[in-house]
Protein backbone atom coordinates (compact mmCIF):
# COMPACT_ATOMS: atom_id res chain seq x y z
CA UNK A 1 0.00 0.00 0.00
CA UNK A 2 1.08 3.52 -0.71
CA UNK A 3 0.27 5.33 2.50
CA UNK A 4 0.78 9.05 2.93
CA UNK A 5 0.43 11.29 5.95
CA UNK A 6 0.12 15.06 5.56
CA UNK A 7 1.19 16.64 8.82
CA UNK A 8 1.99 19.94 10.50
CA UNK A 9 4.34 21.13 13.17
CA UNK A 10 2.58 23.10 15.91
CA UNK A 11 3.24 24.72 19.26
CA UNK A 12 3.27 22.31 22.19
CA UNK A 13 -0.16 22.60 23.82
CA UNK A 14 1.59 23.49 27.10
CA UNK A 15 2.85 26.74 25.60
CA UNK A 16 1.50 30.11 26.64
CA UNK A 17 0.82 32.46 23.75
CA UNK A 18 2.67 35.77 23.67
CA UNK A 19 1.75 38.39 21.08
CA UNK A 20 4.58 40.70 20.07
CA UNK A 21 4.52 43.28 17.27
CA UNK A 22 1.13 42.06 16.14
CA UNK A 23 1.96 38.39 15.80
CA UNK A 24 2.43 35.31 17.93
CA UNK A 25 5.97 35.10 19.28
CA UNK A 26 7.80 31.92 18.32
CA UNK A 27 11.13 32.48 20.10
CA UNK A 28 11.81 29.90 22.78
CA UNK A 29 8.61 28.01 22.01
CA UNK A 30 8.66 24.22 22.02
CA UNK A 31 7.32 22.85 18.76
CA UNK A 32 5.85 19.38 18.35
CA UNK A 33 4.21 17.19 15.77
CA UNK A 34 0.54 18.31 15.85
CA UNK A 35 -1.08 15.94 18.39
CA UNK A 36 -3.88 14.96 15.97
CA UNK A 37 -1.28 14.18 13.31
CA UNK A 38 0.38 11.74 15.73
CA UNK A 39 -2.74 9.59 15.44
CA UNK A 40 -2.42 9.74 11.65
CA UNK A 41 1.24 8.69 11.73
CA UNK A 42 0.53 5.87 14.18
CA UNK A 43 -2.37 4.58 12.10
CA UNK A 44 -0.29 4.76 8.91
CA UNK A 45 2.48 2.70 10.48
CA UNK A 46 -0.01 0.13 11.75
CA UNK A 47 -1.57 -0.15 8.29
CA UNK A 48 1.83 -0.67 6.68
CA UNK A 49 2.86 -3.28 9.22
CA UNK A 50 -0.40 -5.14 8.61
CA UNK A 51 -0.82 -4.73 4.86
CA UNK A 52 2.68 -3.99 3.61
CA UNK A 53 3.84 -0.98 1.63
CA UNK A 54 5.37 2.31 2.55
CA UNK A 55 4.56 5.33 4.68
CA UNK A 56 5.54 8.75 3.34
CA UNK A 57 5.05 11.82 5.52
CA UNK A 58 4.66 15.24 3.92
CA UNK A 59 4.56 18.72 5.35
CA UNK A 60 4.36 22.28 4.06
CA UNK A 61 6.12 24.48 6.55
CA UNK A 62 9.18 26.51 7.50
CA UNK A 63 12.66 25.10 8.17
CA UNK A 64 11.84 24.20 11.78
CA UNK A 65 9.01 21.91 10.60
CA UNK A 66 11.54 19.24 9.61
CA UNK A 67 11.66 18.28 13.29
CA UNK A 68 8.03 17.13 13.03
CA UNK A 69 8.94 15.01 9.98
CA UNK A 70 11.85 13.51 11.92
CA UNK A 71 9.50 12.66 14.79
CA UNK A 72 7.29 10.80 12.31
CA UNK A 73 10.33 9.03 10.82
CA UNK A 74 11.49 8.07 14.31
CA UNK A 75 8.04 6.61 15.00
CA UNK A 76 8.50 4.44 11.91
CA UNK A 77 7.56 6.32 8.73
CA UNK A 78 9.71 5.39 5.72
CA UNK A 79 10.13 8.60 3.74
CA UNK A 80 9.67 12.29 4.43
CA UNK A 81 8.96 15.23 2.15
CA UNK A 82 9.46 18.81 3.30
CA UNK A 83 7.92 21.51 1.15
CA UNK A 84 9.67 24.48 2.66
CA UNK A 85 9.85 27.03 -0.17
CA UNK A 86 8.69 30.24 1.52
CA UNK A 87 6.72 31.23 -1.55
CA UNK A 88 4.48 28.21 -0.93
CA UNK A 89 3.43 28.92 2.65
CA UNK A 90 0.05 30.51 3.25
CA UNK A 91 -3.59 29.92 4.15
CA UNK A 92 -5.58 26.68 3.87
CA UNK A 93 -6.58 27.48 0.28
CA UNK A 94 -2.98 27.88 -0.79
CA UNK A 95 -1.43 25.04 1.21
CA UNK A 96 -4.07 22.55 0.05
CA UNK A 97 -3.34 23.54 -3.56
CA UNK A 98 0.41 23.10 -2.96
CA UNK A 99 -0.23 19.65 -1.49
CA UNK A 100 -2.50 18.78 -4.42
CA UNK A 101 0.38 19.66 -6.77
CA UNK A 102 2.62 17.31 -4.82
CA UNK A 103 0.10 14.45 -4.99
CA UNK A 104 -0.96 14.89 -8.62
CA UNK A 105 1.68 12.49 -10.01
CA UNK A 106 1.81 10.18 -6.98
CA UNK A 107 0.15 6.83 -6.67
CA UNK A 108 -1.57 6.67 -3.32
CA UNK A 109 -4.08 4.37 -1.69
CA UNK A 110 -4.77 6.39 1.42
CA UNK A 111 -3.84 9.79 2.82
CA UNK A 112 -4.13 10.30 6.58
CA UNK A 113 -4.05 13.59 8.47
CA UNK A 114 -5.06 14.94 11.85
CA UNK A 115 -8.61 16.28 11.91
CA UNK A 116 -7.24 19.73 12.70
CA UNK A 117 -4.06 21.42 13.85
CA UNK A 118 -4.02 22.63 17.44
CA UNK A 119 -2.71 26.05 16.36
CA UNK A 120 -5.16 27.36 13.77
CA UNK A 121 -7.86 24.81 14.58
CA UNK A 122 -9.48 25.29 11.17
CA UNK A 123 -9.60 21.70 9.97
CA UNK A 124 -9.79 22.87 6.36
CA UNK A 125 -6.64 21.75 4.59
CA UNK A 126 -7.21 18.00 4.56
CA UNK A 127 -10.80 18.16 3.34
CA UNK A 128 -9.81 20.69 0.68
CA UNK A 129 -7.01 18.37 -0.44
CA UNK A 130 -9.42 15.45 -0.90
CA UNK A 131 -11.71 17.65 -2.98
CA UNK A 132 -8.83 18.93 -5.13
CA UNK A 133 -7.61 15.36 -5.70
CA UNK A 134 -11.17 14.30 -6.48
CA UNK A 135 -11.17 11.54 -3.89
CA UNK A 136 -13.61 10.83 -1.07
CA UNK A 137 -12.82 11.63 2.53
CA UNK A 138 -14.05 10.60 5.96
CA UNK A 139 -13.29 13.02 8.77
CA UNK A 140 -12.72 12.67 12.52
CA UNK A 141 -12.33 8.90 12.46
CA UNK A 142 -11.90 6.83 15.61
CA UNK A 143 -11.57 3.44 13.91
CA UNK A 144 -10.30 2.29 10.51
CA UNK A 145 -10.57 -1.11 8.83
CA UNK A 146 -9.32 -1.88 5.33
CA UNK A 147 -10.15 -5.06 3.42
CA UNK A 148 -8.81 -5.05 -0.12
CA UNK A 149 -10.16 -1.75 -1.41
CA UNK A 150 -13.11 -1.70 1.02
CA UNK A 151 -12.90 0.69 3.94
CA UNK A 152 -15.06 0.93 7.04
CA UNK A 153 -14.40 3.79 9.42
CA UNK A 154 -16.02 5.07 12.59
CA UNK A 155 -16.63 8.80 12.41
CA UNK A 156 -17.06 10.90 15.55
CA UNK A 157 -19.95 13.21 14.69
CA UNK A 158 -20.14 15.47 17.74
CA UNK A 159 -20.36 12.56 20.10
CA UNK A 160 -22.51 10.30 17.94
CA UNK A 161 -20.81 7.54 16.02
CA UNK A 162 -21.29 7.04 12.30
CA UNK A 163 -20.13 3.81 10.72
CA UNK A 164 -19.05 4.91 7.25
CA UNK A 165 -18.18 2.76 4.24
CA UNK A 166 -15.98 3.81 1.31
CA UNK A 167 -13.44 2.52 -1.19
CA UNK A 168 -9.78 3.33 -1.69
CA UNK A 169 -8.28 5.71 -2.67
CA UNK A 170 -9.44 7.75 0.28
CA UNK A 171 -8.41 10.54 2.62
CA UNK A 172 -9.19 10.25 6.34
CA UNK A 173 -8.72 12.75 9.16
CA UNK A 174 -7.91 11.29 12.55
CA UNK A 175 -9.57 11.97 15.87
CA UNK A 176 -8.51 11.27 19.42
CA UNK A 177 -9.40 7.72 20.40
CA UNK A 178 -8.23 6.19 17.10
CA UNK A 179 -5.08 4.72 18.64
CA UNK A 180 -2.32 5.35 21.17
CA UNK A 181 0.60 6.90 19.29
CA UNK A 182 3.91 5.18 20.06
CA UNK A 183 6.92 6.98 21.42
CA UNK A 184 9.87 7.01 19.03
CA UNK A 185 12.60 4.54 20.03
CA UNK A 186 16.20 5.69 20.51
CA UNK A 187 17.25 3.69 17.47
CA UNK A 188 14.37 5.22 15.56
CA UNK A 189 15.48 8.71 16.53
CA UNK A 190 19.08 8.01 15.50
CA UNK A 191 18.00 6.62 12.14
CA UNK A 192 15.56 9.46 11.58
CA UNK A 193 18.22 12.09 12.17
CA UNK A 194 20.38 10.65 9.38
CA UNK A 195 17.58 10.23 6.89
CA UNK A 196 17.72 12.66 3.95
CA UNK A 197 14.48 14.56 3.40
CA UNK A 198 13.05 15.21 -0.02
CA UNK A 199 12.63 19.00 -0.45
CA UNK A 200 10.83 19.77 -3.69
CA UNK A 201 10.73 23.41 -4.84
CA UNK A 202 7.75 25.27 -6.27
CA UNK A 203 9.15 24.52 -9.74
CA UNK A 204 9.53 20.78 -8.97
CA UNK A 205 5.90 20.68 -7.88
CA UNK A 206 4.68 22.67 -10.85
CA UNK A 207 2.81 25.11 -8.62
CA UNK A 208 1.25 27.99 -10.52
CA UNK A 209 3.25 31.12 -9.68
CA UNK A 210 0.03 33.11 -9.33
CA UNK A 211 -1.23 30.90 -6.47
CA UNK A 212 -1.88 33.22 -3.51
CA UNK A 213 -3.66 32.98 -0.17
CA UNK A 214 -7.29 34.06 -0.01
CA UNK A 215 -7.45 34.63 3.73
CA UNK A 216 -5.08 36.82 5.69
CA UNK A 217 -4.68 37.87 9.29
CA UNK A 218 -5.08 41.58 9.98
CA UNK A 219 -4.67 41.51 13.70
CA UNK A 220 -3.70 39.10 16.47
CA UNK A 221 -4.68 39.74 20.07
CA UNK A 222 -4.99 38.07 23.45
CA UNK A 223 -8.25 37.70 25.36
CA UNK A 224 -8.77 40.13 28.21
CA UNK A 225 -6.95 38.75 31.23
CA UNK A 226 -9.31 37.12 33.65
CA UNK A 227 -8.74 38.04 37.27
CA UNK A 228 -9.14 35.44 39.94
CA UNK A 229 -12.60 35.57 41.46
CA UNK A 230 -13.94 35.02 44.89
CA UNK A 231 -13.20 31.99 47.06
CA UNK A 232 -16.30 31.35 49.15
CA UNK A 233 -15.89 30.86 52.90
CA UNK A 234 -17.91 29.08 55.57
CA UNK A 235 -19.19 25.53 55.99
CA UNK A 236 -20.37 23.54 53.00
CA UNK A 237 -24.02 24.46 53.45
CA UNK A 238 -23.28 28.19 53.74
CA UNK A 239 -20.97 28.21 50.75
CA UNK A 240 -23.42 26.35 48.53
CA UNK A 241 -26.26 28.69 49.54
CA UNK A 242 -24.05 31.70 48.83
CA UNK A 243 -23.00 30.27 45.46
CA UNK A 244 -26.58 29.75 44.31
CA UNK A 245 -27.42 33.27 45.46
CA UNK A 246 -24.46 34.73 43.54
CA UNK A 247 -25.24 32.80 40.37
CA UNK A 248 -28.83 33.94 40.53
CA UNK A 249 -28.50 37.56 41.60
CA UNK A 250 -24.97 38.73 40.78
CA UNK A 251 -23.93 36.70 37.73
CA UNK A 252 -27.54 36.25 36.61
CA UNK A 253 -26.88 32.99 34.83
CA UNK A 254 -29.67 30.92 36.35
Amino acid at each position, binding site marked *: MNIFVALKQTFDTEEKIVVENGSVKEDGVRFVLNPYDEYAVEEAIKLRDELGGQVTVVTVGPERAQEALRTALAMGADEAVHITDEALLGDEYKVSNVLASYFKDKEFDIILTGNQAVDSGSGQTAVRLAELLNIAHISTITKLEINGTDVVAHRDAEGDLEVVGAKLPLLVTCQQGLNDPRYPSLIGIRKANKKPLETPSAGDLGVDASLASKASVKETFL*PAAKSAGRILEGDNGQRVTELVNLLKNEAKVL
Partner: protein
Amino acid sequence: MSRNVLVLADLRNGGLRNVTFEALSAAKKLAEGGSVYAAILTGSGAAAHADALAQYGAQKVFVVENAALENYVPDAYAKALEAVINESKANVVFLAHSAIGRDLAPKLAARFGAGAVSDIIGVEVDGGNLTFTRPIYAGKAFTKNVVEGDLVFATVRPNNLEKSEPEAGKTAEVVNVSVELPADSLRTFIKEVVKKSTGGVDLSEAKIIVSGGRGVKSADGFKPLQELADVLGAAVGASRGACDADYCDYALQIGQTGKVVTPDLYIACGISGAIQHLAGMSNSKVIVAINKDPEAPIFKVADYGIVGDLFDIVPLLTEELKKALA
Protein backbone atom coordinates in the same frame (compact mmCIF):
# COMPACT_ATOMS: atom_id res chain seq x y z
CA MET B 1 -21.28 47.04 -0.80
CA SER B 2 -24.32 44.82 -0.91
CA ARG B 3 -23.90 41.08 -0.68
CA ASN B 4 -26.12 38.01 -0.61
CA VAL B 5 -25.63 35.99 2.52
CA LEU B 6 -26.71 32.36 2.64
CA VAL B 7 -27.01 30.46 5.93
CA LEU B 8 -27.09 26.67 5.91
CA ALA B 9 -29.56 25.49 8.56
CA ASP B 10 -27.82 23.20 11.03
CA LEU B 11 -30.17 20.37 11.92
CA ARG B 12 -29.54 17.94 14.70
CA ASN B 13 -32.00 15.18 15.55
CA GLY B 14 -34.59 16.91 13.39
CA GLY B 15 -34.38 20.29 15.13
CA LEU B 16 -32.79 23.59 14.12
CA ARG B 17 -29.87 24.53 16.28
CA ASN B 18 -29.59 27.98 17.77
CA VAL B 19 -26.39 28.66 15.88
CA THR B 20 -28.50 28.87 12.71
CA PHE B 21 -30.46 31.80 14.18
CA GLU B 22 -27.25 33.41 15.40
CA ALA B 23 -25.80 33.22 11.88
CA LEU B 24 -28.99 34.63 10.34
CA SER B 25 -28.94 37.52 12.80
CA ALA B 26 -25.37 38.34 11.74
CA ALA B 27 -26.28 37.90 8.08
CA LYS B 28 -28.91 40.66 8.34
CA LYS B 29 -26.23 43.13 9.41
CA LEU B 30 -23.82 42.12 6.67
CA ALA B 31 -26.15 42.06 3.66
CA GLU B 32 -26.09 45.89 3.27
CA GLY B 33 -28.91 45.92 0.76
CA GLY B 34 -28.28 42.40 -0.50
CA SER B 35 -30.44 39.45 0.47
CA VAL B 36 -30.44 37.03 3.37
CA TYR B 37 -31.21 33.44 2.46
CA ALA B 38 -31.35 30.15 4.29
CA ALA B 39 -30.81 26.66 2.94
CA ILE B 40 -32.18 23.40 4.30
CA LEU B 41 -30.67 20.14 3.12
CA THR B 42 -32.53 17.14 4.50
CA GLY B 43 -34.16 13.82 3.79
CA SER B 44 -37.63 15.09 4.68
CA GLY B 45 -39.57 17.58 6.80
CA ALA B 46 -37.91 20.80 5.60
CA ALA B 47 -41.20 22.72 5.48
CA ALA B 48 -41.52 22.61 9.27
CA HIS B 49 -38.47 24.88 9.63
CA ALA B 50 -39.12 27.55 6.98
CA ASP B 51 -41.10 29.93 9.21
CA ALA B 52 -38.53 29.91 11.99
CA LEU B 53 -35.80 30.75 9.47
CA ALA B 54 -37.94 33.58 8.06
CA GLN B 55 -38.53 35.02 11.52
CA TYR B 56 -34.79 35.36 12.05
CA GLY B 57 -34.31 37.12 8.74
CA ALA B 58 -34.30 34.67 5.82
CA GLN B 59 -36.04 36.29 2.84
CA LYS B 60 -36.01 33.05 0.87
CA VAL B 61 -35.53 29.50 2.06
CA PHE B 62 -33.89 27.18 -0.46
CA VAL B 63 -34.84 23.58 0.17
CA VAL B 64 -33.20 20.44 -1.11
CA GLU B 65 -35.18 17.40 0.03
CA ASN B 66 -33.77 14.09 -1.07
CA ALA B 67 -33.61 10.69 0.59
CA ALA B 68 -29.83 10.76 0.04
CA LEU B 69 -29.63 13.69 2.50
CA GLU B 70 -31.15 11.76 5.41
CA ASN B 71 -27.68 11.41 6.94
CA TYR B 72 -24.64 13.58 6.36
CA VAL B 73 -22.75 12.26 3.33
CA PRO B 74 -20.13 14.74 2.09
CA ASP B 75 -20.64 14.09 -1.65
CA ALA B 76 -24.43 14.44 -1.38
CA TYR B 77 -24.44 17.51 0.82
CA ALA B 78 -21.75 19.20 -1.27
CA LYS B 79 -23.71 18.71 -4.48
CA ALA B 80 -26.91 19.99 -2.87
CA LEU B 81 -25.33 23.08 -1.31
CA GLU B 82 -23.37 23.77 -4.50
CA ALA B 83 -26.70 23.92 -6.37
CA VAL B 84 -28.18 26.31 -3.78
CA ILE B 85 -25.12 28.57 -3.86
CA ASN B 86 -25.37 28.80 -7.64
CA GLU B 87 -29.13 29.37 -7.57
CA SER B 88 -28.98 32.02 -4.82
CA LYS B 89 -25.90 33.83 -6.17
CA ALA B 90 -24.53 33.87 -2.62
CA ASN B 91 -21.43 35.91 -1.80
CA VAL B 92 -21.10 34.77 1.78
CA VAL B 93 -22.03 31.29 3.01
CA PHE B 94 -22.38 30.68 6.74
CA LEU B 95 -22.37 27.15 8.13
CA ALA B 96 -22.28 26.05 11.75
CA HIS B 97 -18.89 24.93 13.05
CA SER B 98 -20.49 21.54 13.67
CA ALA B 99 -19.94 17.95 12.60
CA ILE B 100 -21.52 18.86 9.26
CA GLY B 101 -20.45 22.46 8.71
CA ARG B 102 -16.79 22.09 9.55
CA ASP B 103 -16.60 19.22 7.06
CA LEU B 104 -18.73 20.70 4.31
CA ALA B 105 -17.33 24.26 4.26
CA PRO B 106 -13.77 23.37 3.21
CA LYS B 107 -15.05 20.84 0.66
CA LEU B 108 -17.20 23.46 -1.06
CA ALA B 109 -14.60 26.20 -0.66
CA ALA B 110 -12.15 23.97 -2.54
CA ARG B 111 -14.77 23.22 -5.19
CA PHE B 112 -15.40 26.94 -5.77
CA GLY B 113 -11.71 27.88 -5.39
CA ALA B 114 -12.77 30.14 -2.52
CA GLY B 115 -11.29 31.24 0.77
CA ALA B 116 -12.85 30.23 4.06
CA VAL B 117 -12.56 31.13 7.70
CA SER B 118 -13.42 28.57 10.35
CA ASP B 119 -14.98 28.77 13.79
CA ILE B 120 -15.75 32.49 13.79
CA ILE B 121 -16.93 34.23 16.97
CA GLY B 122 -17.50 37.63 15.39
CA VAL B 123 -17.91 39.37 12.05
CA GLU B 124 -18.12 43.03 11.11
CA VAL B 125 -18.20 45.19 8.02
CA ASP B 126 -15.10 47.30 7.80
CA GLY B 127 -14.83 49.68 4.86
CA GLY B 128 -16.68 47.39 2.47
CA ASN B 129 -14.78 44.30 3.61
CA LEU B 130 -15.88 41.66 6.07
CA THR B 131 -13.60 41.08 9.01
CA PHE B 132 -13.97 37.79 10.84
CA THR B 133 -12.78 37.20 14.39
CA ARG B 134 -11.73 33.69 15.34
CA PRO B 135 -9.78 31.92 18.07
CA ILE B 136 -6.35 30.41 17.53
CA TYR B 137 -4.63 27.96 19.88
CA ALA B 138 -8.12 27.02 21.07
CA GLY B 139 -8.81 30.50 22.42
CA LYS B 140 -5.42 31.35 23.93
CA ALA B 141 -5.42 34.15 21.34
CA PHE B 142 -7.63 35.56 18.58
CA THR B 143 -7.16 36.87 15.06
CA LYS B 144 -9.12 39.17 12.80
CA ASN B 145 -9.12 37.86 9.26
CA VAL B 146 -10.13 39.14 5.86
CA VAL B 147 -10.86 36.89 2.90
CA GLU B 148 -10.52 37.90 -0.75
CA GLY B 149 -12.95 36.97 -3.45
CA ASP B 150 -16.63 37.37 -4.23
CA LEU B 151 -17.52 34.10 -2.52
CA VAL B 152 -16.47 33.47 1.08
CA PHE B 153 -17.28 30.59 3.40
CA ALA B 154 -17.36 30.91 7.17
CA THR B 155 -18.21 28.43 9.90
CA VAL B 156 -19.79 29.90 13.02
CA ARG B 157 -19.07 28.85 16.57
CA PRO B 158 -22.29 28.37 18.55
CA ASN B 159 -23.13 30.75 21.44
CA ASN B 160 -21.04 33.68 20.19
CA LEU B 161 -22.79 35.75 17.51
CA GLU B 162 -25.65 37.76 18.95
CA LYS B 163 -29.10 36.39 18.20
CA SER B 164 -31.71 39.01 17.30
CA GLU B 165 -35.37 38.90 18.32
CA PRO B 166 -37.50 36.82 15.95
CA GLU B 167 -40.15 38.72 13.99
CA ALA B 168 -43.38 36.90 14.76
CA GLY B 169 -45.59 35.97 11.84
CA LYS B 170 -42.95 36.55 9.20
CA THR B 171 -42.78 34.03 6.35
CA ALA B 172 -40.40 33.47 3.47
CA GLU B 173 -40.71 32.22 -0.08
CA VAL B 174 -39.67 28.56 -0.21
CA VAL B 175 -37.63 27.67 -3.29
CA ASN B 176 -37.33 23.95 -3.95
CA VAL B 177 -34.06 23.03 -5.61
CA SER B 178 -33.91 19.60 -7.14
CA VAL B 179 -30.63 17.75 -7.26
CA GLU B 180 -29.93 14.28 -8.65
CA LEU B 181 -28.03 12.21 -6.09
CA PRO B 182 -27.84 8.65 -7.42
CA ALA B 183 -26.27 6.23 -4.94
CA ASP B 184 -23.42 5.33 -7.28
CA SER B 185 -22.30 8.98 -7.38
CA LEU B 186 -21.75 9.04 -3.61
CA ARG B 187 -18.36 7.71 -2.63
CA THR B 188 -19.07 7.23 1.06
CA PHE B 189 -22.15 5.77 2.66
CA ILE B 190 -23.51 5.52 6.19
CA LYS B 191 -23.84 1.94 7.38
CA GLU B 192 -25.10 2.81 10.83
CA VAL B 193 -25.48 5.72 13.23
CA VAL B 194 -24.95 5.01 16.91
CA LYS B 195 -26.39 7.78 19.08
CA LYS B 196 -24.00 8.16 21.98
CA SER B 197 -24.69 11.71 23.09
CA THR B 198 -26.01 11.41 26.61
CA GLY B 199 -28.70 13.40 28.33
CA GLY B 200 -29.72 15.15 25.15
CA VAL B 201 -28.01 18.48 25.90
CA ASP B 202 -25.54 19.32 23.19
CA LEU B 203 -22.12 20.21 24.62
CA SER B 204 -21.19 22.76 21.95
CA GLU B 205 -24.49 24.66 22.25
CA ALA B 206 -25.10 24.25 25.98
CA LYS B 207 -25.72 27.40 28.02
CA ILE B 208 -24.53 25.60 31.15
CA ILE B 209 -21.86 22.90 31.37
CA VAL B 210 -20.98 20.76 34.38
CA SER B 211 -17.53 19.34 33.82
CA GLY B 212 -15.49 16.72 35.66
CA GLY B 213 -11.78 16.00 35.91
CA ARG B 214 -9.52 13.45 37.53
CA GLY B 215 -11.03 14.39 40.88
CA VAL B 216 -14.19 12.56 39.80
CA LYS B 217 -12.16 9.37 40.33
CA SER B 218 -14.29 6.89 38.33
CA ALA B 219 -17.03 6.55 35.73
CA ASP B 220 -19.49 6.29 38.64
CA GLY B 221 -18.12 9.54 39.99
CA PHE B 222 -19.79 11.35 37.10
CA LYS B 223 -23.25 10.47 38.50
CA PRO B 224 -23.51 13.41 40.92
CA LEU B 225 -22.34 15.69 38.08
CA GLN B 226 -25.04 14.31 35.80
CA GLU B 227 -27.64 14.90 38.53
CA LEU B 228 -26.49 18.51 38.88
CA ALA B 229 -26.58 18.89 35.10
CA ASP B 230 -30.12 17.50 34.95
CA VAL B 231 -31.36 20.09 37.44
CA LEU B 232 -29.75 22.89 35.44
CA GLY B 233 -30.61 21.57 31.98
CA ALA B 234 -26.87 21.48 31.43
CA ALA B 235 -24.52 19.33 29.38
CA VAL B 236 -21.79 17.24 31.00
CA GLY B 237 -18.19 17.69 29.89
CA ALA B 238 -14.81 16.45 31.03
CA SER B 239 -11.12 17.27 31.12
CA ARG B 240 -8.56 15.25 29.20
CA GLY B 241 -7.46 13.70 32.49
CA ALA B 242 -10.90 12.20 33.05
CA CYS B 243 -11.08 10.92 29.46
CA ASP B 244 -7.57 9.45 29.50
CA ALA B 245 -8.41 7.67 32.76
CA ASP B 246 -11.45 6.18 30.97
CA TYR B 247 -14.00 7.75 33.30
CA CYS B 248 -15.89 8.98 30.24
CA ASP B 249 -15.97 9.08 26.46
CA TYR B 250 -13.56 11.32 24.51
CA ALA B 251 -16.63 12.95 22.99
CA LEU B 252 -16.99 14.86 26.27
CA GLN B 253 -13.46 16.24 26.28
CA ILE B 254 -13.06 20.00 26.59
CA GLY B 255 -9.70 21.60 25.90
CA GLN B 256 -7.12 22.36 23.27
CA THR B 257 -7.53 18.81 22.07
CA GLY B 258 -11.26 18.26 22.29
CA LYS B 259 -14.04 20.81 22.24
CA VAL B 260 -13.76 24.50 22.88
CA VAL B 261 -16.84 25.77 24.68
CA THR B 262 -18.18 29.18 25.68
CA PRO B 263 -21.29 28.61 27.81
CA ASP B 264 -22.87 31.22 30.11
CA LEU B 265 -21.95 29.08 33.11
CA TYR B 266 -19.17 26.51 33.42
CA ILE B 267 -18.96 24.46 36.63
CA ALA B 268 -15.59 22.71 36.91
CA CYS B 269 -15.62 19.85 39.40
CA GLY B 270 -12.36 18.17 40.39
CA ILE B 271 -10.53 19.79 37.49
CA SER B 272 -7.09 21.19 38.31
CA GLY B 273 -7.03 23.48 35.26
CA ALA B 274 -4.10 22.46 33.07
CA ILE B 275 -3.39 25.07 30.40
CA GLN B 276 -4.80 22.80 27.67
CA HIS B 277 -8.10 22.60 29.54
CA LEU B 278 -8.21 26.32 30.29
CA ALA B 279 -7.81 27.02 26.57
CA GLY B 280 -11.02 25.14 25.94
CA MET B 281 -13.24 26.83 28.53
CA SER B 282 -11.75 30.03 29.95
CA ASN B 283 -13.82 32.21 27.61
CA SER B 284 -16.99 30.96 29.32
CA LYS B 285 -18.96 33.88 30.76
CA VAL B 286 -19.08 32.70 34.37
CA ILE B 287 -16.85 29.98 35.80
CA VAL B 288 -17.36 28.10 39.06
CA ALA B 289 -14.57 25.87 40.36
CA ILE B 290 -14.96 23.14 42.97
CA ASN B 291 -11.66 21.53 43.91
CA LYS B 292 -9.94 20.14 46.98
CA ASP B 293 -6.62 21.81 46.16
CA PRO B 294 -6.67 25.55 46.95
CA GLU B 295 -3.60 25.97 44.71
CA ALA B 296 -5.29 24.46 41.63
CA PRO B 297 -4.84 26.78 38.61
CA ILE B 298 -8.58 26.53 37.84
CA PHE B 299 -9.19 29.01 40.70
CA LYS B 300 -7.18 31.64 38.75
CA VAL B 301 -9.88 31.80 36.07
CA ALA B 302 -12.89 31.04 38.27
CA ASP B 303 -15.38 33.77 39.18
CA TYR B 304 -16.50 31.76 42.20
CA GLY B 305 -14.47 29.06 43.90
CA ILE B 306 -15.24 26.50 46.56
CA VAL B 307 -12.29 24.67 48.06
CA GLY B 308 -13.66 21.30 49.05
CA ASP B 309 -14.50 17.74 48.08
CA LEU B 310 -16.75 17.67 45.04
CA PHE B 311 -18.53 14.59 46.42
CA ASP B 312 -19.68 16.73 49.39
CA ILE B 313 -20.32 19.97 47.52
CA VAL B 314 -21.97 18.84 44.28
CA PRO B 315 -24.91 16.93 45.85
CA LEU B 316 -25.57 19.87 48.21
CA LEU B 317 -25.48 22.23 45.25
CA THR B 318 -27.94 20.02 43.37
CA GLU B 319 -30.38 20.10 46.29
CA GLU B 320 -30.01 23.85 46.79
CA LEU B 321 -30.61 24.49 43.09
CA LYS B 322 -33.68 22.26 43.08
CA LYS B 323 -35.13 24.55 45.74
CA ALA B 324 -33.98 27.75 44.07
CA LEU B 325 -35.28 26.80 40.64
CA ALA B 326 -38.54 25.25 41.83
